[in-house]
């Protein structure tokens, strides 16, 4: 589905990603774990076309997408829920969702998907006319994910969906991520600091340190890997 080959990016003089290579198969949940500033968000922003790649290739279903404008990449079915959720605070819940389906023209499908996300998160339906900025953190995360689903993505990039949420809410969000993957066959690329939760729902994982991928394995094996346990699971 998605392949990153030897990606390098740069912020000014600082090298952010160095030779990042990874691949994601259709239908998988893949997680990328790592410490703060290791390059997790940069990886997602490079895929979405926001951060330019200095070298390397990004292939989506075999087609090169590096250097394409962000809106072209969304049109090809890659959607991102960025870190911090980025809700349009002054726009209503409904308008936020409308913007999620910005590039779609199939009115019937949009309506169906709207009903689907409202059934997934009934609280959003209740607050549909409220400005997005007035929602709680958990509700904003639901809205951010719903907005991405409104694009009917084939590949969903999630950046720290559990950040700043109460434990119960975190559990719910991860269950929904799993459900989205199962029911819609949506491929998911999940970036998390909460490595424990992420590895529990993922098929495979990558570990990133200082902009380099240092380890990759199946999620089960990573969960029992002594190095990972020590560095990221706090055991």
């Amino acid at each position: 589905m998605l392949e990153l080959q030897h990606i390098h990016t740069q912020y000014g003089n600082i090298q952010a990603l160095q030779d990042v290579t990874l691949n994601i198969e259709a239908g998988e949940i893949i997680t990328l774990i790592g410490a703060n500033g290791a390059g997790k968000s940069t990886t997602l922003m490079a895929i979405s076309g926001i951060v330019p790649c200095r070298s390397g290739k990004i292939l989506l279903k075999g087609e090169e997408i590096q250097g394409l404008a962000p809106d072209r990449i969304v049109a090809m079915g890659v959607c991102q829920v960025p870190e911090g959720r980025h809700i349009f605070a002054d726009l209503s819940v409904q308008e936020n969702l409308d913007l999620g389906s910005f590039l779609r023209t199939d009115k019937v499908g949009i309506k169906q998907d709207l009903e689907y996300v409202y059934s997934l998160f009934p609280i959003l339906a209740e607050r549909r006319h409220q400005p997005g900025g007035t929602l709680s953190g958990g509700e904003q995360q639901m809205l951010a994910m719903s907005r991405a689903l409104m694009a009917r993505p084939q590949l969903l990039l999630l950046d720290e969906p559990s950040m700043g949420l109460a434990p119960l809410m975190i559990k719910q969000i991860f269950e929904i991520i799993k459900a989205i993957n199962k029911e819609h066959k949506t491929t998911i690329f999940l970036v998390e600091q909460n490595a424990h939760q992420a590895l529990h729902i993922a098929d495979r994982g990558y570990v990133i340190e200082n902009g380099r991928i240092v380890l990759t394995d199946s999620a089960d094996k990573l969960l029992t890997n002594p190095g990972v346990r020590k560095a990221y699971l706090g055991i």
Partner: protein
Amino acid sequence: MDYFIELFLSGLTRGSIYALIALGYTMVYGIIGLINFAHGEIYMIGAFTSFIVATVLSIYGFPLLAIVIVAGVAAAIWSSAYGYTVEKIAYKPLRRAPRLAPLISAIGMSIFLQNYVLLAQTSDFLPFPELIPEFAFMEPVAHIIGSSDLVILVATTVVMLALTLLIKFTKIGKAMRATAQDKTMALLVGINVDRVISATFIIGSALAAIGGLLIASHIGQINFAIGFLAGIKAFTAAVLGGIGSIPGAVLGSLILGLTESFATGYVSSDYEDVFAFSLLVLILIFKPSGLLGKAETKKV
């Protein structure tokens, strides 16, 4: 009392013209955080375009209403073309530059356009054809409000309602609001931000052109420099109301128009600008973000 009402209405007229120009400043600022100093010149070009079209058409003896409509549409299109082009050549290449760079580029564009019209047209004041007749039904109140004031009030109200609907309900309107709030997220939902910026310049320029047509036929003469003071005043109004806020621009413009009108009527027309800018200073002292502007919170 009649005098008060007369001043009030002429203040509203003045304010609504300022508003047509101020909207362009505030919309562009909302989207890309730039004070487009060339905007006053876009208004001036609108006035010149409608002058040329109206003069030609009146030579051929077209009915007034047709002249007004054709001149207005032509001015809106021509000014939009200028606004679009100015953004493409003077601001877009500087999108990632420090904020001062596009600002200087904007001032340069303003000076360039003024001198371009000076050379291409003339430095003289040109008599603008009277496009708005004295309506017969206005006769009983003609000592309080002129027919052209009425037309300006009605026209600007219609234009502003249309703009409100556009921004509230259309796809491009939603895209504009989204881009103004969070550019990165706008990109991530698939909005072509460059196109939104162009649309903003086009809409703002068309509004200014309509303002140019209305004020020129109201005052009766134009020249290449009219954009400067009108631009500064409209900019003042936009800051007064809170730059970046669309209702703020309209409110600021009406307050500015009324202040000037009352100052002229009760004190002296010499002090018109003194009052206008004193008001700006006062409001900025007590509410630096403007009347309806949001205080900028810096996250640490």
